[in-house]
């Protein structure tokens, strides 16, 4: 376990909430790396604006992280004076420097490792009970033998001792304990759990950063549930395996990132036309092309909504926080199954890979339930025209339901047809399924009231919420609307949400303002709209949004 992991878990066990992200250099292994942690006594979903403590093992290539690690004159920087020159950006920040002979301390302890020292120093400064850390060491290293445990403990202790020597150290607010055991989870793990809660029992996989962990979580856990995951040769195969599994009646999922999604679009269109439910989680990263695989961006919105050839109505959703990956993925399985259509879930690198402490999530009611054709008598019409647009689906094994699912345009029986009438009928039916569906209140999270509304989605939501709360504290009434259902659009629900709103600030992490353009195309917005869009790799900070709000108030 890394120092960050130890600290997060120790804090969680002691009643604090927290969030951890990691940042690494270009080296595949063995290069520079940073763990960024934020602790609080209420749930935190956004990285810190600036850091109170910086523990430095060495300064090598620190510049790579300086844009992510904001230092202030309040920051305590603890570093070995022999670990290289202090970077200019650190000096300029005015941060308080504390020397610690890191190498010397470690050298004095047999098996002493920097991660344990960092754990000890930081744990000591912020006041984590040392016993909790010892407990964790026992749990994690117990199997490696007493020696390993003892040297780790000794290193942690050395850290604590050093921490005691520091003055004006920042302290955490009182922890908020809970009767229920809290969870530590990443967004990718949460998505996996959401999938199986929604009923998924089949997955197909082709690894890609940063979506791989969803697949790696599903592989052993689907097995435990009696399901299966197949590793595919590529994404063309994985999406079609998912379609095949789902055609067999088993709710199915895959996860990928932008390049993989691009390879899947032809077959997602097949799922639209042949009306086979399936879920594709796109954990977005910096684009275009291979882009910046290890960093976050929201720039796959366009391809998710508009990336299929032909008119191909389908569902696009987006989790609005690390923990919401659970709810939104589960809900998306439910939606896909209910409407017999593909659902694309737009997660991203930040919420996918960030690790967070949360209260255990309630089990929600959304379990995929497909309208099945059973006890079939007479001619079976797979694409029968119904009021909702959803037609009862016969799955293999059901007598009398034999039919051919087809991506060619077809008549209600499924027989290929080039007739204008059949085309129009089936197009209307496929569209009606998703525009006429009752999405309830889950389509968006709406918070507060005000003439100014921040309209956002996905991983920008948490930063927007902090910004909105700060604005309110500063006396500015701001409404927050964060869309969980990206497509289809719900004009009535939005109109209601926008009642009384005169100005809209659209916030998103793209270069071209994809979300703002999409909203403009599909919704009636108030006449005053501003678009704040910044591409990755840096996550948008609450203070940036706040200053946009202040500027406009």
């Amino acid at each position, binding site marked *: 376990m890394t120092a960050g992991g130890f600290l997060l878990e120790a804090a*969680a066990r002691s009643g604090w909430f927290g969030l951890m992200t990691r940042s690494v250099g270009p080296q595949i292994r063995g290069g520079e790396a940073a763990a960024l942690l934020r602790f609080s006594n209420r749930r935190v979903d956004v990285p810190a604006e600036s850091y109170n403590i910086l523990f430095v093992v060495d300064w090598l290539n620190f510049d790579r992280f300086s844009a992510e690690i904001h230092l202030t004159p309040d920051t305590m920087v603890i570093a070995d004076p022999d670990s290289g020159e202090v970077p200019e950006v650190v000096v300029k920040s005015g941060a308080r420097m504390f020397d610690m002979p890191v190498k010397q301390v470690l050298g004095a302890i047999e098996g002493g490792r920097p991660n344990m020292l960092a754990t000890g120093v930081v744990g000591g400064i912020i006041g984590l009970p040392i016993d909790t850390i010892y407990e964790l060491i026992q749990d994690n290293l117990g199997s490696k033998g007493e020696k390993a445990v003892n040297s780790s403990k000794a290193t942690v202790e050395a850290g604590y001792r050093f921490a005691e020597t520091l003055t004006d150290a920042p302290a955490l607010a009182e922890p908020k304990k809970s009767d229920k055991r809290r969870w530590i989870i990443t967004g990718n793990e949460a998505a996996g759990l959401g999938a199986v809660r929604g009923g998924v029992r089949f997955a197909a996989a082709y690894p890609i950063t940063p979506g791989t962990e969803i697949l790696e979580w599903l592989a052993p856990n689907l097995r435990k549930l009696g399901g299966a995951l*197949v590793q595919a040769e590529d994404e063309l*195969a994985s999406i*079609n395996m998912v379609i*095949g*599994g789902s055609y*067999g009646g088993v709710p199915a999922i895959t996860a990928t990132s932008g390049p993989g999604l691009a390879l899947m679009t032809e077959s997602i269109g097949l799922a639209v036309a042949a009306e086979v439910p399936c879920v594709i989680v796109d954990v977005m990263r910096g684009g275009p092309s291979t882009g910046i695989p290890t960093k976050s961006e929201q720039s796959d919105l366009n391809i998710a909504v508009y990336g299929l050839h032909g008119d191909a109505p389908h569902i696009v959703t987006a989790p609005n926080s690390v923990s919401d990956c659970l709810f939104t993925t589960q809900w998306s399985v439910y939606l896909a199954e209910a409407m017999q259509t593909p659902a694309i879930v737009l997660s991203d690198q930040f919420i996918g890979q960030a690790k967070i402490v949360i209260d255990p999530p309630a089990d929600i009611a959304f379990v995929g339930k497909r309208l099945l054709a059973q006890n079939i008598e007479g001619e079976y019409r797979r694409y029968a025209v119904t009021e909702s647009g959803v037609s009862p689906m016969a799955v*293999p094994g059901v*007598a009398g339901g034999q039919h051919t699912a087809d*991506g060619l345009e077809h008549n209600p029986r499924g027989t290929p047809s080039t007739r204008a009438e059949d085309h129009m009928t089936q197009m209307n039916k496929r569209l009606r399924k998703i525009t006429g569906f009752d999405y309830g209140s889950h389509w968006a999270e709406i918070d507060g009231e005000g003439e100014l509304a921040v309209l956002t989605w996905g991983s920008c939501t948490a930063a927007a919420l902090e910004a909105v709360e700060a604005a309110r504290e500063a006396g500015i009434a701001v409404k927050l609307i964060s869309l969980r259902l990206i497509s289809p659009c719900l004009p009535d629900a939005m109109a209601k949400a926008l009642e009384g709103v005169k100005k809209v600030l659209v916030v998103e992490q793209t270069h071209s303002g994809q979300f703002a353009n999409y909203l403009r195309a599909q919704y009636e917005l108030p006449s005053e709209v501003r678009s704040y869009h910044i591409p990755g790799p840096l996550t948008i900070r609450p203070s940036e949004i706040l200053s946009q709000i202040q500027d406009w108030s």
Partner: protein
Amino acid sequence: MTAHTAPAFKASDYKSDIKPVWCPGCGDYHVLLSVTRALAELGRRPEDVACISGIGCSSRIPAYVNCYGFHGVHGRSLPIGTGLKVARPDLTVLVAGGDGDGFSIGGNHFQHACRRNIDITYIVMDNRVYGMTKGQPSPTTEPDWDSALSPGGTGLSPFHPLVIALASGANFVARTFSGDPNRTTEVLVEAIKHPGFSFVQILSPCVTFRPDERGWKDVVHTAAVEETDDPARAARRIMTDDGFNIGILYRGNRAPYKLTGREATSDTDQLGEMFAI
């Protein structure tokens, strides 16, 4: 023909009422006949059989068979069949299509499906041409076959589907001729019954764009040697054959992909608990 008790089904029970779009004389009519006969012979209920295809003239076959069918996109029939079989091991899954669909755009899935060795049967109606798009060379086309897209021929050595199947790990490899539905039916029955991935190349003339293939009936001949379970022997034989040897060329005993033993040992609540600190 394999010994069997009186079948509960007739070939006509597996024939749908949809009229094929195929040209008069197309070899695929006989493939359809053989598939329905083989299914009748095996006696599986139509609802327990699924036939998956891609795009092409040959790939139209699912709609003409009375069973569950999926006419997918070009080149992706094997992944659909794979997903279906893994999710539903109880079904009999046939995957069918053309040489373009299977060896050109679908060539990667072909290799990997052979490796994966899932218990499905893959039938390729090989006419050495893209029929549906009106006559372009496919991977199995002769290097000197002239066409609009490759004037004077491609000059490329043809793709050897049987060698690739064998080298990649298919567990049953056979070649038949659509014009001989009796033998084709027999081979299909064996292919479907054999565990693991079975590959059957059916030479099926395209009378419209390859009228010369009408002559195939005169050149096909029964493979001179017995089938084998030794991949190296089978490979040697196929690498040197003339492409018209008919019969089961390899019947292996490679371990098929494990589809069984999928009892749940946990529920989703228990899985959630793993995140509790």
